[in-house]
């Protein structure tokens, strides 16, 4: 077994929502709670969940936009969360982020050339006289003409802007790229173009992706392994084919069945979840999904509403956090 590129151990990010008179915390939003994950070199890991489940927070923790409340991020033998900011910066280069919204993530007053070359210059990655060539090379790599370097972001369409964002991330010569819903703001016919580009770049540049999305259909095509998040916790984790063929967690099943299918032959009985995702502020004890779960308590005596189920490996590489499959401890 190869060594993981990055190991996330018990990562938590809690936001304080309210304090009492003495400054003690009275209300906590648990955006990410006890989250553990290994990502292996060269793979694409798909992280799926609905809005508010904490998937973007995981991405931001990885690139040091948030400081974790607890837990470790082990990269290259070091725990990134324990490093001093000055030491941490060196590692920031190797973990890059591609944003969801290509309209707000590019500075409208900078030319495309400046946007891509700024990280190179700031980090003094290559001699100044070679920066121009590098920018041209990166633009070509993402399928844009090198002549576009003098243009401004507003001259480009959504798909092209996303390509510029990808080029900017590539400029840092990263090993891991966190893609935070990179295609959800794009038109259908453009989504496929960007997904194919990311796939092609991973081979060309030897990249590893953490691919964050809200629908299981988008990550299906690009991922090697897929993790499903619900209210700050990982509820299921499996290789792609296993997850889509044999989903175990009731939430994963509902998510899969909620995807509108164009081919009537593949249409399944739909599992309609009732209600909304509950608030992550002061969550009740027990399984986070219990309030919407349609199989709750069917195994007889499972502590669904009192104890949180652990993520358990039920078959090789297939992990699930549900008492129905792991049994009560």
């Amino acid at each position, binding site marked *: 077994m190869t060594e993981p590129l990055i190991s996330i151990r018990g990562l938590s990010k809690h936001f304080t929502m309210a304090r009492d008179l003495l400054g003690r915390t009275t209300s906590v939003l648990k955006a990410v709670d006890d989250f553990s994950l290994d990502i292996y070199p060269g793979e694409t890991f798909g992280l799926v969940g*609905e*809005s508010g489940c904490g998937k973007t927070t995981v991405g931001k923790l990885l690139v040091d936009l948030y400081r974790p409340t607890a837990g470790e991020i082990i990269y290259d033998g070091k725990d990134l969360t324990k490093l001093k900011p000055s030491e941490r910066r060196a590692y920031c280069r190797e973990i890059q982020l591609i944003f969801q919204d290509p309209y707000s993530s590019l500075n409208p007053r900078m030319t495309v050339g400046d946007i891509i070359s700024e990280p190179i210059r700031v980090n003094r990655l290559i001699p100044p006289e070679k920066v121009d060539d590098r920018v041209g090379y990166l633009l070509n790599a993402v399928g844009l003409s090198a002549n576009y370097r003098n243009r401004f972001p507003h001259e480009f*369409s959504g*798909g*092209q802007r996303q390509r510029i964002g990808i080029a900017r991330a590539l400029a840092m010569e990263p090993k891991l790229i966190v893609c935070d819903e990179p295609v959800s703001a794009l*038109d*259908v*016919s*453009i*989504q*496929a*173009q960007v*997904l*194919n580009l990311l*796939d*092609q770049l991973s081979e060309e540049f030897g990249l590893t992706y953490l691919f964050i999305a*809200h*629908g*299981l*259909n*988008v990550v*299906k*095509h690009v991922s090697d392994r897929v993790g499903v998040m619900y209210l700050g916790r990982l509820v299921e984790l499996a290789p*792609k*084919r296993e997850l*889509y*063929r044999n989903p175990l967690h009731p939430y994963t099943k*509902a*998510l*899969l*069945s*909620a*995807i*509108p*299918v*164009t*081919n*009537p032959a*593949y249409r399944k009985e*739909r599992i*309609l*979840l009732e*209600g*909304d*995702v509950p608030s992550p502020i002061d969550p009740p004890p027990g399984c986070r999904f219990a309030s919407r779960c349609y199989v709750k308590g069917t195994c007889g005596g499972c502590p669904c509403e009192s104890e949180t189920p652990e993520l358990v490996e039920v078959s090789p590489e297939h992990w699930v956090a549900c008492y129905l499959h792991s049994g009560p401890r």
Partner: protein
Amino acid sequence: MADTVLQVSGLSTDFVMKRGTVHAVRDVSFTVREREVLAIVGESGSGKSVAALSVMRLLQPPGRVTDGKVLYKGRDLLTLSHKEMRSIRGNHISMIFQEPMTSLNPVFTIEDQLVESIKTHMKLDSNAAVARAIDMLRLVGIPSPEKRIKDYPHQMSGGMRQRVMTAMALSCDPDLLIADEPTTALDVTIQAQILALLSELRDKIGMALILITHDLGVVAETADRVVVMYCGQVVEEASAAQLFDQPLHPYTLGLLESIPGMEDAESDGPLPMIPGMVPNPLNLPRGCAFAPRCSRREPRCSGGMPELTELGDGRKVRCFVAADMIAAEVMPRD
């Protein structure tokens, strides 16, 4: 055959701007029958929303309808006075919008907003209007509506707000509901709830529905008939079953293939994709607007605009190649 509720014929809408004129909707025709769900599909800029706003006469300048007829039960909506049009909106035709976050007024409660629209359109006193508002909230599946009606929009989630919008649109018993991307801003599990709700309401209160969307998956789940738009034109029209069984226009085919669907969970190759991008609406290509991106392009495609050809049983396609193939009955079945 059920009665026709809305018949749009030859609708054209222009936006006249300093840089030139955008023909956002070009000669669009479609009909909606009673209890029917008609889906209008297209990417951003295809003119699907502008067509809907033209029907409702809600276009803002510089948008202007330049030609066509919108017959609602025999009356041409485009010739009505503003006052007559106001009595059509809400009472007969309602619309819900894409953004449940911005379509509700944040400084009024749900009750204020629902009761206002009910009292405007129906002759009810305040108590009856509140009772009706609560009934409507219950109809769209909001739990404990007596309490939630006092909420402000920010106290509700996106799915709940979309339900409130739907309740408001339905509160005066319209015959036709136009839903402009009603689920785009929502999570998949909530999207499934709203789509199930719209189908259920169609059966329960017997209204017709125009569903505007870019998501062919949503179309497959809910629509009876589909109109596919590209660059302001209808490029294909068919029943939902026909369209997904045998898409004729290369654009429809490309859209269907490029959806990362659940069907091919085993494939690892690159996704099929449509190359290039939607042309600049100020500078449309000569001939077929889709020709520059089309895999079946022939020289004649950039010479002249193909007509929307009728193919029998309500199918129409705007493509030289597909029409010829159908005529010769050699259309490959995908």
